[in-house]
């Protein structure tokens, strides 16, 4: 089988996903155009050699709708022969794009593919595209829909993690992200965003709080207690019948931030890379997706990782660094506990709690961060994994070459 190689990664900084966020005034197409142009410029890429652009976008409506991948290709003045596809695997979309691109390349169907994703969460509210999953009462009932935060709180309850346990994890995310930014570890991949007149909009991740403290976090009210009491807790507990009540420990400070951002990864065969004068940085060893129990929703990473590890003939200990998306503090905590991984090897430069989770892009972002850090530390193998809406998990294992 042909191997799929990772050639480069670029991303925008992540901007606060509210109307006072620095990327709120940028359109999602503009974020993609910025990255596509940067990618082209960095390698003096002949874009006509690119077969396809595969992008994740979880709320593909409005100006984010109608296959934004193809729109962005044309707006970035890439060759018109470059196709574009937009897909959604919810929070895993960004990593799904990379895996799909790798599969296209490995199968021999295509040679050079751009993968990634975008989400302007400040402009297009999460969930505003609807979906039978939650708005169709028949499906909602059948699947036992509850908001993810209720599932996160249920995991904390079942694992015995208190509010201070999850807050401590969140604090760590901010401290590590702040240190990494300070140390310039994100500079290689970040493409600053400028407006149409060339004025700078944002150059660094906007939501990191270097001064975050447990005391300040302790002031935040739990986000899902009220919703839980309205009936969602009862729905969850109809499936988790040995839990008496859900302790609501997650809040805005220990859950992933709502942000705007985009990311891309250039994926191709060895030959295609050579043709474009590119040097491969890593190859995809294995990837997997899996379905998990949909009500608790966030327990997919462990089985997805196990599945990918088995494909690669590896054990968790064989992986040098892990990126486990910080959708909620309990997700990396539980995944690490399940897999027996030391937290010292997990999200070493912080995660979505500090820097935010632009839904369609995050998977690509964390894989890129992982790649940069493997190189910086000169380590060989890394794994990225995310929990996914509807009860799914995704994992990708990469290896430097």
């Amino acid at each position, binding site marked *: 089988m042909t191997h799929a190689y990772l050639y480069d990664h670029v991303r925008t900084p992540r901007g606060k996903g509210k109307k006072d966020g620095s990327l709120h005034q940028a359109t999602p197409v503009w974020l993609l155009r910025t990255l596509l142009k940067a990618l082209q410029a960095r390698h003096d890429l002949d874009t006509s050699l690119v077969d396809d652009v595969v992008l994740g976008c979880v709320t593909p409506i409005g100006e984010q709708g109608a296959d934004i991948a193809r729109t962005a290709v044309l707006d970035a003045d890439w060759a018109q022969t470059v196709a574009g596809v937009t897909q959604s695997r919810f929070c895993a979309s960004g990593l799904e794009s990379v895996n799909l691109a790798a599969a296209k390349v490995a199968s021999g169907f295509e040679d050079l593919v751009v993968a990634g994703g975008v989400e302007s969460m400040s402009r297009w509210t999460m969930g*505003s595209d*609807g979906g039978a999953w*939650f*708005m*169709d*009462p*028949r499906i*909602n*009932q059948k699947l036992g*829909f*509850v908001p993810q935060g209720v599932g996160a709180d249920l995991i904390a309850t079942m694992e015995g993690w208190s509010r201070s346990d999850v807050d401590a994890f969140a604090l760590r995310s901010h401290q590590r992200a702040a240190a990494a930014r300070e140390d310039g570890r994100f500079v290689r991949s970040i493409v600053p965003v400028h407006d149409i007149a060339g004025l700078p909009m944002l150059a660094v991740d906007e939501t990191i709080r270097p001064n975050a403290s447990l005391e300040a976090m302790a002031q935040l009210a739990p986000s899902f207690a009220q*919703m839980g009491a*309205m*009936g*969602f807790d*009862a*729905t969850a*507990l*109809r499936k988790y*019948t*040995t*839990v*008496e*009540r859900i302790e609501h420990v997650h809040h805005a400070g220990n859950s992933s931030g709502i942000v705007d951002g985009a990311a891309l990864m250039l994926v191709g065969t060895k030959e295609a890379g050579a043709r474009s004068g590119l040097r491969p940085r890593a190859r995809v060893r294995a990837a997997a997706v899996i379905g998990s129990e949909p009500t608790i929703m966030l327990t997919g990473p462990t089985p997805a990782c196990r599945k990918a590890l088995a494909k690669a003939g590896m054990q968790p200990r064989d992986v040098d660094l892990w990126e486990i998306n910080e959708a909620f503090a309990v997700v990396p905590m539980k995944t690490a506990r399940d897999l027996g991984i030391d937290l010292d090897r997990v999200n070493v430069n912080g995660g979505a709690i500090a820097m935010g989770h632009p839904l369609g892009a995050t998977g690509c972002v964390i894989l890129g961060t992982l790649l940069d850090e493997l190189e910086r530390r000169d380590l060989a193998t890394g794994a990225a994994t995310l929990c996914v809406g509807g009860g799914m998990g995704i994992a990708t294992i990469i290896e430097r070459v």
Partner: protein
Amino acid sequence: MSTPAVTLTLESDGILVAAMDLPGRPMNVVGDALMEGIDAAVRRLSEPDVKGLILSSAKADFCAGGDLDRMSKWTTPQEPFEASMAMKSVLRRLEKTGKPVVAAINGHALGGGLEIALACHARIAIDDPRLKLGQPEVKLGLLPGGGGTARLSRLVGIQQALQICAEGNDIPVAKALGMGLLADTAKDRADLMAKARAWIEANPKAAQPWDLPKFRFPGGDSRSPAVVQMWTIAPSIASAKSQGNYPAVQHIMSAIFEGGLVDFDNACVIESRYFAACVMSPESRNMIHTLWYQLNAIKKGASRPQGVAASTVRRLGILGAGMMGAGIAYAAAKVGIVVVLLDTTMEAAERGKAYSQGLLDKAVKRGRSTADKRDALLARITPTTDYSLLAGCDLVIEAVFEDREIKADVTRKAEAVIGAGAVFASNTSTLPITGLARASQRPANFLGLHFFSPVDKMPLVEIIVGQQTSPETLARGFDFVLQIGKTPIVVNDSRGFYTSRVFATYVMEGLTMLQEGVHPRHIEAAGLQAGMPMPPLALQDEVSLSLSLHVAEQTRKDMAVEGKTFAEHPGLAVIRRMCEIGRIGKKAGKGFYDWGEGGRSLWPGLAGMFPAAPQQPDQRELIDRLMFVQANEAARCLQEGVLRSVADGNIGSIFGWGFAPFQGGALQFIDAMGAKAFVARARELAARHGERFEPAAKVVAQAEEGGRFGL
């Protein structure tokens, strides 16, 4: 030609008055006859000499709902689908002639009745607090199939429509006016007709809002963000109550949700599809079978001895003014019965009366009653310690402590005063009536009237027939139960009678599970998911562990006297262990749960006392155990003659201890799954969990020879 169901009169002002008056029925019900009558009215309305239509009723009600007799004959989904579409086709024409149509609502407009009114351009109702408006179909596992979901969501908004249809509660006239369901109210029939005429004169051309080009759903359609948000949580809110056991609730949500995405006519067809699904559901069939047919049969006196003249109680004596006595006093005084409430001290008797005062004060405060009515009711209750006041009582009910000596004593004292023809009843829940009747001079006049707590809320009274109870006494007891607005079931005398005996099997099964290492919350979740109103451990706490232990020990002694051995239930050991450490139930604030101000939470010490097994059984297994053990015991009750009818068994189980209504009662549970399937599963459970699951011989015979409990 038969008499038409709708009488048409063209008045001199050009207004056509259509009076619904279904021949041969006490109430107007929706069926072919009524719809043909309305169809004729529409045709007449279309003629040029008619300028508008008042749809009214010649009966006391406007229209009480669908004809369930017709529905119960449907065997294929095509029949309900087509019937519902046919009804809507008439109603659609009614609202689309361009001429004004007013519903003059003189009495109840329920179910299909309200749907007919909704197809009128305006609704005016008599302002009477007893007048009922609503879509109660859900209570029989159905949904409004006559355009109710489609019209209500377009008239009062999706959220309110959902509430009306999914909860099925009556809408008071004032509230209906406030939400725009009614255009106006009237003080009497004459005023009603005058206002209806005035509306027609004022609106010579009329169309429904949903037929206007610029129509918008009030509050938004199913696409609008606020409504989407509502749909996101509505199923969780509904299931928190229904546990997902009622498909009608889900179908109502779906019909309104999907109807909120399409135009009116498509919404009507979608509604009919879900209606047909409801009609064909076993849950609806079970509920109609029991809560309609069997309940009606009971109320019509199916278990009452025939040939005994109807009786009423005018003066009631109650011995013991504790919680039960006080509750019975309230229920009786409420229907105009004069009550003598007797206890050993005046203070205790007064306290019993104060219970009524408390309930009534609350009702007055909430506007459900008036100070005058309260005072009149209270004046009918005389608290006393003097037995001589019992003179002239038609009925005396003793509700004293469950102790044979005390009961015998009050029986003798009361009988010394009351007339030879008076009936004496014991409100015992555990002691056999025949034994208690030994203290009576007139055992033929003695029976059991087992009330449930709290009396003012619980709808059932279990009438216990002792060996010597006469048919006349039974009939009088039966009449009294109906007189106070409760539902009587009649059972023969036996330990625990019917309700206490079967109810106990549910709780004891839960306790047995705990003993076996099933996680307590796993047990409780199974109870709720089975459709029971309360989970077993919480119920045992409510009942009190010490009381259950006392009853069990009493039974052991009694049986020893009778020369029988008491077969101890494995769950009893759990009660004993808990009582030993003083965790005796809710009254003490501690049992299986810690009971506090903020509600109950499982006592953490349970984990040490009854360690949960690492491998927990499937919920299905637990649910089956909890339900099969009850159904099987109910079948044994029928087999042993404790139960005298299937209807009493089903209604008694639902009204008495809340047996999952969607199953149609403890015996219908067996009928619905079929005796064969029941026997097979019961035998599996017996092999694993003990002989109590060994299926009743009567059901085994049904499985082998065919047959069912039926009506």
